[in-house]
């Protein structure tokens, strides 16, 4: 592997982590969706680059899937959902930007430490890739935890899945079937969640999860 291949792969993966951070402090839903589309775009680029340097044409399919579904269809669909739900003006912040960013940095540090330690014999590209992927996953989870709105939780879930795809493509020899099935399961999850959002909305007049908890009659 030449130096350039490695550097570009590294750059793209690093950009994914950076965009995850961007997602973390978007408190308006439109902006969040735009950043998510960017996230998916960079993922598609990264996967395509992997396809190029690994000489694995089936990864182009994965890249195309990521581009079409995650960078276009899902953001557009979520956009429409937000408009139809009439929540595009909502601002949400459960945890402040500062603590969220600090936690995010700690998570990235943790995933670096873990991955670089446990994969000492692995090939360096896969190693870095895995470390970045774990960071993206953890940041996605962090986003799901710190957000209240169901739509932004969906976005957190999707960016978590982007991290999984990044990890999967970084490892050589992942069969196409696995990737396609993962992609479809994400799509189905998206559809199901979308339907549920509307159902929830119909029933409760809101997609704020706190309201849902109130309806369940919980103490908090």
């Amino acid at each position, binding site marked *: 592997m030449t130096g350039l291949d490695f550097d570009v792969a590294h750059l793209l993966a690093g950009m994914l982590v950076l965009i995850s951070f961007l997602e973390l402090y978007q408190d308006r839903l439109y902006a969040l969706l735009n950043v998510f589309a960017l996230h998916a775009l960079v993922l598609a680029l990264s996967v395509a680059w992997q396809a190029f340097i690994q000489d694995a044409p089936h990864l182009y399919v994965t890249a195309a899937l990521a581009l079409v579904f995650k960078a276009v269809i899902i953001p557009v669909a979520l956009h429409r959902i937000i408009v139809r739900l009439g929540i595009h003006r909502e601002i949400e912040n*459960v945890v402040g930007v500062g603590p969220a960013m600090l936690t995010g940095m700690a*998570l990235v540090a*943790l*995933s670096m*430490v*873990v991955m670089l*330690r*446990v994969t000492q014999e692995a090939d360096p590209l896969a190693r870095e890739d895995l470390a970045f992927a774990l960071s993206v996953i*953890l940041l996605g*989870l*962090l986003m*799901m*935890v710190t957000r*209240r709105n169901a739509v932004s939780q969906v976005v957190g879930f999707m960016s978590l899945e982007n991290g999984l795809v990044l990890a999967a493509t970084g490892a050589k020899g992942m069969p196409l079937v696995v990737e396609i099935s993962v992609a479809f399961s994400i799509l189905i999850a998206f559809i199901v969640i979308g339907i549920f959002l509307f159902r929830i909305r119909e029933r409760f007049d809101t997609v704020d*999860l*706190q309201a*849902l*908890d109130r309806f*369940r009659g*919980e103490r*908090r």
Partner: protein
Amino acid sequence: MTLWITLSCTAILLLVAVFAVAAGREAAATYVVYGLCALAALTSLLATLQHLLGLAPPAIVTLPLGIPWLGAHFRLDALSAFFLAVVDLGAVTASIFAMGYGRHEEAPLRVLPFFPAFLVGMSLVVLADDAFTFLLSWEFMSLTSWALVMSHHRLQENIRAGYIYLVMASFGTLMLLLAFGLLAGPEGHYTFAQIRAAHPTAGLAALVLILALTGAGSKAGLVPLHVWLPLAHPAAPSHVSALMSGVMTKIAVYGFVRIVFDLAGEPAWWWSMVVLAVGGFTAVMGVLYALMQHDLKRLLAYHTVENIGIIFIGLGLALAFKTYGMATASALALTAGLLHVFNHSVFKSLLFFGAGAVLTATGERDMEHLGGLIHRMPQTAFVFLVGCAAISALPPLNGFVSEWLTFQAILLSPQLPAWGLKLLVPTVGALLALSAALAAACFVKAFGVTFLGRARTSAVQCATEIDRFSLAAMYFFAALCLVAGVLPGLFIDALAPISDALVGASMPSQIGTQWLSIVPIMASRSSYDGLLVFLFMVLSGTFSAFAIHRLASDRLRRAPAWDCGYPDASPATQYTAGSFAQPIRRVFGTVVFRAREHVDMPAPGSMQPARLVVDLRDLIWDALYVPIALAVGYAADRLNRLQFLTIRQFLSLVFAALVILLLVLAIWP
């Protein structure tokens, strides 16, 4: 070839189970299903006998079932052939018994489909030659027998029995799962051939022994893991009780023998001590529990616990002798244990059939409501008496032979070099003798209170003899008790290949001995001749009967039964099961069960009767199971709050768990 036959028999039994689901409502289904079961089991039995008689070499079959890269391995060697023969023999007879007994079943659809499936489970456990197939069949056997236990599911006590059985069965399977996991090692060598070839380290083997003892022991009914057995066995229909008590517990013994003698490698010095101590404790506790019972089927179930203890004493002795290289003595002890496996399966099934017959005829299991059945059901009473004599280890029946052989092995213990064993084995011998004596007392109680005296309830007075199928099954087993007692040499010789394979030696051949006697070690030391004892008993019995009838007055007199100072009083004044057991309860129960008796004396002028109230406490249940149940209940109460978290709190929990695990990974050296 024979293995294929037995495997196809299990396949046929599975088909019969499916058929029973479809046709269970038809009136003739009982005959058809049980008839097919009997035929399939008989075919399998005949095929297995070839292995048992040494006519066929061990057979191996691998079927492409189960885990893709593993397949399902089956093997029929001497050990599995013996246990398969026990299963099939019990299955044939229970099916014939059920052709008559099963007609009285209220909900046949709850029994008919599961009975063949249960037989399949037991056969496959014995045939399995890899850990996966073994555990799968084991669990299948547990689940189908659970379904049979729950067949009369509206009774509160059956629900409790089923629940406890399910918990204990899962526990046992978990232990066996761990044992096989340890044996298979990190590479996952799941076939028994691979496990046999690998030699586990001493620590690993010790863990495997403990896991096998608890796993198989919970299924077999070793004290203190026996709690489910006296609840679940009586709850099932009687022919199933016979199979569970007579055969399924033996499958557990098979699991133990297979793991400890065959797979786990060389035994360490302390293994036998654990097995012997547990066996001796189980034998005595089982019979003491049984003495306190007055439910006929539950009494029999507790006797299963006792007999499992006797079998484990035999196995423990075999382990002890094997550890110190005394192969002949080890073969003797192992043969004694395995012979008792066979004998117990025969007479315990017979006794459960008898209890089932009584239950059908009277609708009663409680001995305090029975009595005088020998007039109403003379044939059942006769075969039940044979079973009682056999289980009480009276010569010339089969129970005596195996217990006598166990004692012969115990008498060899002074030759053991280890002091611990030298002290322990005679203690266990004393426990064995005690349990044998108490068992005899218990069956005097069981037979006397149930069949002798006068009827205690009107239901018993109207009882009629059971149908021919059931009688045929019982007569067959009674005859087998006698044959195995009179000609034990045949059975001992059939067990020789097993001890050859497991401990490297076998008992001397018994075929050529004079007068068909058996000689465990050498003729100068000890020998037993069941045939001579039998002939002597028959001759002296005939002679004294003749003498009494000829020389004494032959005038028939009828006198009040049990006329112990209460002439013409109600049947309730007879000796009861409780009063019969009272002396033993006072001697042992005061300590073991905290038995307390007190008299409720009514106030002067009150018309109420005075009552003697007996308080029994099951200390094992109180000390072991109640705390566990309380702890689980407490933890469940605490964790219940987790059910009501918000979505974000759930997510945070998952997130925190992930981060903590990663932190551990990062910090771990």
